[in-house]
């Protein structure tokens, strides 16, 4: 319990630090954000418009006041409104976040379902044909950037063989079959890196555990091999795998931005990229805060899972 509380407190502190850094970054950028925003193509913006925008963004207030207002807004779930179309940032995120989460969940599930059993199997049959083939595949897969995989999948399956749609989105409620079909390729693309990482980590972690005394004892007392693998090997081998899973989620969330772009998946990527291009600060900070919080939450969950799996972590 104590461990859980401490870990949750740390996660909250990290979210606060992330929010503060994003705030400082926006306000420390050289030059006036309002002027920067309004100047396009080297023409000086109208001073009256700049003043108006400064007022709207509260840029004339003392920095400490702005910071407190920013934190208060966060606590109320108010992320401001888009500078481009005045649309509340939170509403835009609420609409699109579930679709991004769905992609992440599908990709992660696929990666775990493929990577962990494959890694275990490869380790238990070390040096065999499966181990060699899978290890080589993992090394190759790790070398292909996620947007290249996505684009090549489209070229091969949608453009050349015409067996899959090139991308798009249909709500699940309207057409479940089509929804899942459209989800397949982006989920596969997102899963590729994590699958290879999980495969490698599971393989080396299982190899570490297999040689230990307690496994030999379990075998010697005549336990069924599947029970030895599940209860005595995997349970001990999974802790480092979970750590790697948590660490790799950052790359996966970043990869999601690319994959959504490649497959026209209407998640958070579209408004984020649009906002980066238009320097729509509230939208950019809102989305980055939400996704970073998501990242920290996933890391929190993997840490808690590790503790549940391995009591030694709880007391450490």
């Amino acid at each position, binding site marked *: 319990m104590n461990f859980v509380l401490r870990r949750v407190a740390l996660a909250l502190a*990290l979210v606060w630090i*992330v929010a503060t850094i994003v705030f400082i970054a926006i306000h420390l950028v050289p030059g006036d954000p309002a002027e920067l925003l309004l100047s396009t193509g080297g023409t000086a913006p109208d001073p009256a418009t700049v003043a108006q925008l400064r007022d709207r963004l509260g840029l004339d207030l003392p920095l400490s006041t702005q910071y407190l207002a920013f934190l208060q807004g966060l606590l109320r779930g108010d992320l401001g409104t888009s500078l481009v179309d005045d649309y509340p940032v939170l509403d835009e995120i609420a609409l699109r976040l579930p679709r991004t989460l769905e992609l992440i969940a599908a990709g992660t599930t696929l990666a775990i379902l493929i990577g962990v059993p494959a890694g275990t199997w490869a380790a238990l049959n070390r040096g065999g044909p499966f181990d060699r083939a899978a290890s080589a595949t993992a090394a190759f897969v790790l*070398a292909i*950037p996620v947007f290249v995989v996505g684009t090549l999948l489209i070229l091969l399956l949608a453009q050349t063989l015409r067996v899959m749609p090139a991308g798009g989105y249909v709500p699940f409620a309207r057409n479940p079959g089509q929804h899942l079909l459209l989800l397949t390729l982006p989920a596969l693309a997102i899963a590729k890196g994590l699958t290879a990482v999980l495969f490698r980590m599971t393989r080396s972690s299982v190899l570490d555990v297999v040689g230990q005394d307690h496994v030999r004892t379990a075998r010697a007392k005549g336990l069924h091999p599947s029970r030895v693998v599940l209860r005595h090997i995997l349970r001990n081998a999974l802790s480092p795998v979970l750590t790697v899973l948590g660490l790799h989620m950052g790359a996966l969330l*970043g990869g999601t931005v690319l994959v959504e772009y490649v497959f026209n998946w209407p998640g958070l990527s579209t408004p984020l990229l649009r906002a*980066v291009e238009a320097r729509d600060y509230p939208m*950019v900070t809102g989305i980055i805060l939400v996704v970073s919080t998501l990242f920290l939450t996933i890391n929190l969950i993997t840490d808690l899972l590790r503790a549940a799996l391995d009591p030694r972590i709880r007391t450490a």
Partner: protein
Amino acid sequence: MKRLALPATLVGVIVLIALLAPFLGLPDPVRQDVAQRLALPSPGSPLGRDEFGRDVLARLIWGGRTSLSVAFAAALIACAIGTTLGLMAAWFRGLGGMLALGSTDIILCFPPVLLALLVVTLAGPGSVTLVMVLSVLFLPGFARVTYAEVQLVQELEYVEAARAIGATTPRILLRTILPNVAGPILVQLSLAVAAAIVLESGLSFLGMGVVPPAPSWGLMIRGARTTLEQAPQLLLWPCAALTLTIFAINLLCDALRDTVDPRTAQKSR
């Protein structure tokens, strides 16, 4: 050492081609020739031309030069600052060092692509922004590795011996400790270069990295997507170049790690 030969040669050849780009007699990689739009390979341009009639081979090689210089610059800056931080934090052990080390960890709270996009929003896209962002992203890795290694090494007898013969602190740090922790830092460097190439190409692919018309593999893939139906070959070249480069650096990285730490080599066999 034998395992290092192949990947090192591969990476060496790629780097050499990128370095020699101005001397290869290639056509101008940004010169457009709309009449030759999507032209197929010909003696003058062995890989054909892209959607603006630019020579694909020239763009491929110059694009590699862009990707590699951004990646190496970012990795080297991160290595210099991160290693210094890690070295100082481990050696002087004070609160300042711990704080400096801890603050680099905060960078790890952000998914890398998102932190990069935040900086691009503030500073605008371009190679300089890319180098800046990427070096910040790889700082914590170097700081952590150096810190951990220095902690192991600084208690050893030869460090004490150096101190006993009256070596100054800078001399101990640079001549005694640094060479002995250089292996893992070198591994980290190759990891960072590969990761930097992946991120640079990804951001350029999104239109948030290298600014057109400058050639970059990510930008070439971005451009080829629009002509996927007429000219799918335009997609394959930059994809192959990117994958081969990352694969070669990953191989080099694995081989380096095995050379530096023979224990992992045994395990992965």
